[in-house]
């Protein structure tokens, strides 16, 4: 079929100039737009891969310089002294501080976020839900240094009461024992709470989106069986939202693990290991790099790069685990129904 004969209808003049290629159909076997786009996307994909490989190679090389001269066990040592003779540095404290602050953040943020998201998607009347969702969207966009300043100026003094209370009643657990009650709460515990507040909006938003997408037909099925609103949510919203909640949490966890400025602003770091979460001290990977990078010499920077690589690997593992959990649950997620 040759379209070039049928397209210029006598009543409607063709939009193309009359001297254009008459066999337009044949000439379009390879569209130039397609060609350009394919080239562009392939090129940028390759460029990206090359850049990433170069970064990884560079970081690994620099890290290996530091690691080969290290006299302490990099994974378990608590001190961070790359200027020493011989240099001795390890990520023990950083790993512990990062893990503890992230766990605190997740334990607080995930349930609260799921609750707020459910409130917005299934409980609140529209005229409350829409503004609330908007405000939370805005909170997700606040720069982390603002959170850091707010944490240092507001959260730290106001947490005083809570930390004293925890020390009084839960001090026997060691974790909540304060060596010096009343000292400013520039501790890893405060960091955890600040991180919880920071990752709350993003988790809430993703969860809300997911809950709104739960198919209405299953909610109606539950309702028709005589389910209360909470039972409807339990039977037909949460099962659909489960993988979404996991993804949202991992997104939040990724942010908590890598958060730099807010942690560096609030925490008063230390290099002595302690189980006392309310005491100043401790540190996280990102905070440690931010705090030490400027005054470090070249070797010190290599050591910091090594710790950064560890954070990178942890982030990768967290993402992988999330993907694994989601993939394993596919059969029951109902996404195909």
């Amino acid at each position, binding site marked *: 079929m040759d379209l070039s004969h049928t397209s210029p209808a006598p009543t409607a003049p063709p939009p193309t100039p009359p001297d254009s290629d008459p066999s337009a159909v044949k000439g379009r076997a390879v569209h130039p737009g397609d060609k350009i786009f394919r080239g562009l996307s392939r090129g940028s994909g390759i460029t990206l891969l090359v850049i990433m490989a170069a970064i990884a190679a560079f970081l690994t090389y620099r890290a290996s310089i530091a690691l080969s001269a290290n006299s302490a066990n990099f994974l378990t040592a608590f001190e961070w002294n790359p200027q020493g003779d011989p240099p001795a540095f390890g990520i023990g404290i950083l790993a512990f501080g990062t893990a503890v602050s992230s766990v605190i953040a997740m334990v607080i943020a995930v349930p609260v976020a799921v609750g707020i998201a459910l409130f917005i998607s299934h409980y609140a009347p529209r005229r409350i839900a829409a503004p609330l969702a908007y405000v939370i969207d805005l909170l997700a966009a606040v720069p982390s240094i603002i959170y850091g300043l707010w944490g240092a100026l507001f959260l730290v003094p106001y947490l005083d009461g809570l930390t004293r209370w925890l020390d009084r009643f839960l001090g026997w657990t060691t974790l909540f024992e304060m060596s010096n009650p009343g000292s400013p709460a520039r501790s890893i515990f405060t960091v955890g709470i600040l991180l919880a507040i920071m990752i709350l909006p993003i988790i809430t938003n993703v969860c809300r989106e997911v809950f709104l997408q739960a198919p209405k037909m299953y909610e109606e*099925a*539950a*309702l028709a*069986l*005589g389910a209360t609103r*909470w*039972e409807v949510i339990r039977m037909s919203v949460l099962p659909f939202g489960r993988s979404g909640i996991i993804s949202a949490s991992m997104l939040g966890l990724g942010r908590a693990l890598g958060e730099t400025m807010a942690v560096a602003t609030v925490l008063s770091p230390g290099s002595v290991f302690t189980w006392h979460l309310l005491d100043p001290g401790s540190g996280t990977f990102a905070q440690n790099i931010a705090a030490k990078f400027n005054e470090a010499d070249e070797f010190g920077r290599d050591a910091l790069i090594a710790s950064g690589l560890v954070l990178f690997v942890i982030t990768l593992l967290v993402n992988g685990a999330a993907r694994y959990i989601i993939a394993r649950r596919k059969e*029951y*997620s109902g996404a195909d*129904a």
Partner: protein
Amino acid sequence: MSPGPAAPTPRAPAHAPSRTHPEKATDTMAKRIDVSGLTAFYGGHRAIDDISMSVEPRSVTAFIGPSGCGKSTLLRTLNRMHEVTPGGRVEGKVMLDHEDLYGTSVDPVAVRRTIGMVFQRPNPFPTMSIYDNVAAGLRLNGDFRKKELDGIVEKSLKGANLWNEVKDRLGKPGSGLSGGQQQRLCIARAIAVQPQVLLMDEPCSALDPISTLAIEDLIGELKSRFTIVIVTHNMQQAARVSDRTAFFNLSAVGRPGKLIEIDDTERIFSNPSVQATEDYISGRFG
């Protein structure tokens, strides 16, 4: 699980069958429905207007009429599902035997437990196994011992003519069944809680002829125990399964739907008293 502050009234009305003796209750549980002056709105839109009719116990009543005349809307007002639609609002009365379903002290959740519903698209919970789907309504209602639950699940699946097909894979997800099997699973789920009325909104429209026949047979069996209301676009189906037929119509698109007439199915299909009914049934419009 917490029912929340919105449900202070007991979940089952006084006449609900005792859950420990489901078989005893079977004879007495079908109830009649009397609708009077019922008008339903979607926001400002009046979808059905001033409908008065009765549904006899232990019989099948079919709703027929052109698309948009409000059959689904009326059906959903009967178990208070209409009001879960944003803007959904109802005026008028629906009496279940002697209880006004829209009375001030009536808990809609309890109404929906008493009046079961089967939807147009089969909707077994995809995250639950076949067994859990059937048990879902029972579990909402309180704790059953495993054995008791097993018995009711088996009985309900047998009641829905599905037992032989699924008895070896009760633990598999319900979404793995065929469409017709899924619909029968939904019926099993609905009858497991021993409702007094069963509402079905075009339950066969997504199914092949064989599954349709299976469900029609099932309806014939179920009507000895339940009051059944079925919406259908299939005239033959209405003629085959129902004892009474209600014809609805609307004067123009966007106008509220009205009940034209309700009568014994035989009469509606042989000698209806209103000309519009005859026109619709013989396919002259709609």
